[in-house]
């Protein structure tokens, strides 16, 4: 097998692995932001922020 195949496979696996990790992290971040926004829309977050002095 040509050495090119091993070089291409290495860079391909690296791109795929890092892409999946970044995608998973971004999706998880989006999920948590939406969950927090939903709680705040119900008024729970605002009460909590007043309690902890975390209000803008």
């Amino acid at each position: 097998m040509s050495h090119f195949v091993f070089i291409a496979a290495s860079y391909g696996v690296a791109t795929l692995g890092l892409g999946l990790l970044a995608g998973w992290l971004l999706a998880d971040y989006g999920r948590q932001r939406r969950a927090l926004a939903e709680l705040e829309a119900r008024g729970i977050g605002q009460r909590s922020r007043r309690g902890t002095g975390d209000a803008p």
Partner: protein
Amino acid sequence: MAILDLANPVRFLSLSARILPWIAGAAVATLAVGFFLAFRAPPDYQQGETVRIMYIHVPFAWLGLFGYSMMAASSIGILVWRHPLADVAHKAAAPVGATFTALCLVTGALWGRPMWGTYWVWDARLTSMLVLLLLYLGLMALRAAIDDPNRAGRAAAVLTLVGFINVPIVKFSVDWWNTLHQPASVFRMGGSTIESSLLWPLLVCAIGFTLLFVALHMLGMRTEILRRRVQALEARAAAEAMA
């Protein structure tokens, strides 16, 4: 102001929101320059074109070890100061470090086949790197297996510190044992043995991947802080509903 006062989750969220896009942008730009230099560098006189794999394999190995060392430092923060941000940093580093370590092993196997004639041998460097990956996976499994986050954090911190013995073993395995893997050629007494036309692209790629690691870790930490805030608010909402 004490440094621990600066390291609280609210301050971290505010600071990281400002600097994360810059770190991510710098990572992409540095990697673009690094890969440009890496593919313009001459082939190695023995390994030929397969030396191109070095520009990703070596940074993955360094960052696999760096991630675990950072988790060991965070473990001290968890066990000694019970600092919440140390626990967040520890938990968020595990999947990032595990990915970099796994990519080190896979790219190493793909480099080993044309150079050594085999994808894998049970030599000390390869085996200790596999142990590092298993430690990362074990730490993630341990956290997932314990419901109480405080107990999970302390248990993971203890296991991290016990497992830290593997980090110097990975580093010095090529000196202590007779391995198929080559000895250290960048960070060694007497200076690097790599020709500068190959070394500089490697260092630029290493800086780029380090910035990427920091950006991914920071994103993971932000997510974990939000997750804990959501869980706390859900618990409060449930308590209020029952009252």
